[in-house]
């Protein structure tokens, strides 16, 4: 429509141009001298032109009317278009706003997504680091827990120290004994009351190979007669195989448990020894000779059986009188020993470790030999030890037969002890501060009952045990061989109740306090080796003794 409206005026201009081209220079023709015919022609022509012009104008007028309508329509359409465009623009603007908002949101989402991705990446990195750390920790734990590391370290130290190794163990203890009995047995010396003592028993271990070892223990002390020393044990230990060990030399008597395993100061729960292993021994405390010994598992873990057989120089006695003390190893080599001794001990541990019923030991021992050129000495005994949780109980019973020379009646003896102790580590007193409960846990109260029956006691032995008479070397054995200062311990029928309270500072450092109640029974004889005089012991007064000892096991 717009093109048609513009074409009208153009057509009129075209007509005028065409006419001008058809009538060149008309004014020039009119102003000159022309014939009529020509004038007529010209007039006619002019008329025609005018007519044509009028027709053209008329037609042009008609055409203008249609164009105006069209233009109006066009304008209307244009207005609509403008309005539509305006609306479109508004829509577009609103859409643009929305797009911008969406773009903003999208950018936020993208930022959040990026952050999440970053966080995820960091998490992955952290997880990886944690995994690596865990792996390192596990590796370290494995290294720390693996015994091989310590073994390797130990091997390195062993290589540094050499193939021959040496160490010192043993124990030391300072003790105080108080016995308020003013008098001893009639005519006998008594010096062990209200006195301080000190014992030091170093044990030397030398190991040239992994199957040979030397062990030596020296008992030294400051006792009733000053300082003294005694060679307790000195032997080679040769481990032939898993089931057999040879021990050769001077050793503790493997009879029962006490001499071998319970006599060290820091091991013995009491300050003194039980009566059968102390002042009036039923079986000698040591021997010099050869042992074969070993142990094996017969069932589950913890179910063990062990044996010890040995032979040695044989028993000896301080004199030929009734009740003479069985000598310590130091006095073995004298003329009284003719035959050699033999001994055997067997023990069984019937409870498996997994049963958690504790550890029970049942044992039987025998020791036999000839003394004084053909007189027999026989002894036998049984023992038990039971340990579970905080409770431990042990006991032994033994009996000996001593054939006497010159047709005298046999010198038979019996001895026993039974003891029990309970660690207070499981006891918590309500209301008591934790610190005090902690101290309480270190206490172990104990009780022991022991006794000896024999026909007589040598008066020289009583004097010798206190360092006054013969056997002054026994100074090193005070009081760990049962000498508590009480003369009643030498009664032929001695009885003793010992109460103890141990305070354990560490597993091998202990402060021990012992209160002994001597309850000897009447009967028996005191015999003098010099004169042969036998005096009925009669009723020996009861007595009490107190001992306190600080001991370190090392």
């Amino acid at each position, binding site marked *: 429509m717009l093109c048609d409206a513009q074409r009208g005026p153009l057509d009129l201009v075209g007509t005028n141009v065409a006419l001008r081209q058809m009538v060149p220079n008309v004014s020039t023709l009119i102003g000159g001298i022309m014939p009529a015919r020509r004038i007529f022609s010209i007039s006619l022509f002019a008329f025609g032109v005018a007519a044509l012009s009028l027709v053209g104008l008329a037609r042009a007028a008609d055409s203008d009317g249609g164009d105006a309508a069209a233009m109006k329509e066009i304008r209307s359409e244009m207005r609509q278009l403008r309005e539509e465009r305006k609306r479109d623009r508004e829509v577009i603007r609103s859409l643009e706003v929305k797009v911008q908002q969406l773009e903003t949101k999208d950018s936020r989402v993208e930022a959040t997504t990026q952050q999440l991705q970053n966080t995820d990446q960091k998490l992955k990195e952290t997880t990886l680091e944690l995994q690596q750390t865990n792996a390192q920790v596990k590796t370290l734990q494995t290294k720390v827990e693996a015994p091989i590391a310590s073994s390797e370290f130990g091997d390195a130290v062993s290589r540094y120290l050499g193939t021959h190794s040496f160490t010192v163990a043993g124990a030391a203890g300072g003790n105080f004994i108080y016995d308020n009995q003013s008098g001893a047995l009639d005519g006998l010396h008594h010096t062990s009351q209200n006195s301080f003592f000190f014992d030091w028993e170093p044990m030397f*271990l030398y190991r040239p190979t992994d199957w040979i070892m030397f062990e030596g223990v020296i008992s030294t002390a400051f006792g009733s007669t000053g300082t003294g020393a005694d060679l307790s044990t000195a032997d080679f230990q040769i*481990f032939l195989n*898993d089931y057999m060990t040879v021990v050769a030399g001077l050793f503790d008597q493997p009879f029962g*448990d006490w001499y071998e395993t319970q006599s060290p100061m820091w091991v013995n729960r009491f300050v003194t020894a039980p009566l059968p292993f102390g002042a009036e021994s039923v079986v000698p405390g040591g021997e010099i000779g050869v042992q*074969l010994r070993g142990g094996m598992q017969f069932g589950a873990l913890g179910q063990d059986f062990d044996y010890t057989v040995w032979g040695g120089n044989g028993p000896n006695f301080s004199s030929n009188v009734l009740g003479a003390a069985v000598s310590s190893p130091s006095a073995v080599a004298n003329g009284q020993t003719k035959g050699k001794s033999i001994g055997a001990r067997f023990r069984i541990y019937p409870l498996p470790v997994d049963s958690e019923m504790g550890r029970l030991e049942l044992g039987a021992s025998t020791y036999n030999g000839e003394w004084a050129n053909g007189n027999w000495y026989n002894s036998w005994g049984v023992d038990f030890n039971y340990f579970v949780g905080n409770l431990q109980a042990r006991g032994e019973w033994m009996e000996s037969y001593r054939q006497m020379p010159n047709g005298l009646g046999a010198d038979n003896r019996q001895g026993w002890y039974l003891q029990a102790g309970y660690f207070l580590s499981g006891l918590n007193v309500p209301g008591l501060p934790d610190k005090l409960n902690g101290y309480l846990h270190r206490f172990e109260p104990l009780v022991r009952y022991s006794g000896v029956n024999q026909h007589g006691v040598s008066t020289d032995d009583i004097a010798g045990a206190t360092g006054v008479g013969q056997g002054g070397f026994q100074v090193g054995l005070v009081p760990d061989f049962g000498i508590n200062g009480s003369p009643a311990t030498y009664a032929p029928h001695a009885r003793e109740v010992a109460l103890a309270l141990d305070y354990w500072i560490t597993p091998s450092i202990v402060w021990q306090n012992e209160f002994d109640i001597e309850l000897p029974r009447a009967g028996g004889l005191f015999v003098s080796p010099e004169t042969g005089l036998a005096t009925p012991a009669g009723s020996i007064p009861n007595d009490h003794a107190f001992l306190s000892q600080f001991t370190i096991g090392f």
Partner: protein
Amino acid sequence: MRKIFAAIVLATLAIGLAGAPASADDNGGAAEHRRLFREGAQLWPVYCNTCHNARPGAEKAPYEWDLIIMHMRTLGNLPAGDVRALVEYLKAR
């Protein structure tokens, strides 16, 4: 009596000679060390406390335990396998 003693000695010799060679340092692999360690940890509070308070392995240097465990093996007549487990445990603490 002597015949009995001779019989006992012969019997113990027969048992002993039939056993495996003695070795306190029988080295196995790492798994064997771990097994011994676990077994030693199980035995330590039972075997040691039977006679005296069980002493921590840290009290002594590892090489010292080699000596002390031989002393204890003799006194306690401990089975050789249990001794290896105990020393493994004591040295590792």
